[in-house]
């Protein structure tokens, strides 16, 4: 497998809009988590918020990158790292870096380990591997999938411990995020998987937003 995303021609505009929506939703969740931290002084909430803000930054970078590509490469639908100019390379590396940083932070929170060395170890191992591999996008999605699996295990335990619809919504949302991430791996060969991946991500973030609204509206 090479380092290629194949995005169908007709979907390019939609993926820009969806990326922007994902960025906004994850930013809202991140900021709300920090607000809860301010109210409760719960460190887990602060780290959770930071994790979501990292992911949000990744989506905004991706959106800007796609917008630039959309305007510059209107005809070319296959986006390759090797064909990127310097600006494009930096953009996609920053996207991968922030997205992985967000997921590492979320996994760190869900592991419940209050030790910065564990966090830095995860960070260095994953980022280091990503930097030295020639198959960056593949490795990025494989690492992301592994991290999502750990997050899902946490939310499964959380749901089994306290079976209510809000815990179920979050659990299902992260399953959708894992499935979308797997679709993105296949999208390196077929553009249809990219579309499915984006739709699954949309459902996932919508579920997370719905849960947040339910929680925030309660007095």
């Amino acid at each position, binding site marked *: 497998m090479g380092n290629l995303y194949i995005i169908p021609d007709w979907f390019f505009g939609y993926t820009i809009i969806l990326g922007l929506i994902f960025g906004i939703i994850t930013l809202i969740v991140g900021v709300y988590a920090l607000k809860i931290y301010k*109210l409760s002084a*719960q460190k*887990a*909430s602060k780290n959770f918020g930071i994790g979501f803000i990292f992911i949000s930054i990744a989506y905004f970078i991706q959106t800007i990158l796609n917008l630039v590509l959309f305007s510059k490469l209107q005809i070319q639908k296959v986006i390759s790292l090797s064909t990127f100019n310097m600006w494009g390379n930096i953009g996609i590396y920053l996207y991968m870096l922030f997205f992985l940083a967000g997921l590492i932070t979320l996994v760190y929170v869900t592991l419940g380990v209050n030790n910065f060395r564990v966090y830095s170890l995860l960070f260095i191992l994953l980022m280091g591997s990503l930097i030295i591999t020639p198959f960056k996008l593949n490795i990025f999605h494989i690492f992301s999938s592994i991290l999502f699996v750990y997050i899902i295990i*946490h939310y499964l335990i*959380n749901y089994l411990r306290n079976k209510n619809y*809000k815990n179920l919504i979050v659990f299902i949302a992260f399953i959708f995020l894992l499935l979308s991430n797997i679709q993105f791996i296949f999208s390196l060969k077929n553009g249809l998987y990219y579309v499915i991946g984006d739709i699954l991500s949309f459902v996932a973030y919508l579920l997370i937003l719905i849960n947040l609204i*339910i*929680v925030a509206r*309660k007095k």
Partner: protein
Amino acid sequence: MSRKRDRLQVIYDILSVIKEKNGKIKPTHILYKSNLSHQMMEEYVGELIGGGFVIENNTASGKTYQLTEKGFDYLNKYKTITDFLDSFGLS
């Protein structure tokens, strides 16, 4: 119920006790009303002072604790806080 949830509940109980006493209370009342050991109460109250939920006043009649705006906020939004932490698996 998880440990952290218990912790949040204890904080809620202590702040509620202070609120019941019109926002000001003596340490002995907290000890009596919150059903904690002296050591635990000291720990929690220290944490609440550090977190800006409570302020300590030293008067001629002894030490009292007073709720801050952040303390009142915590009580008002306790349900939202616990709902958020629970549903996102942070408790």
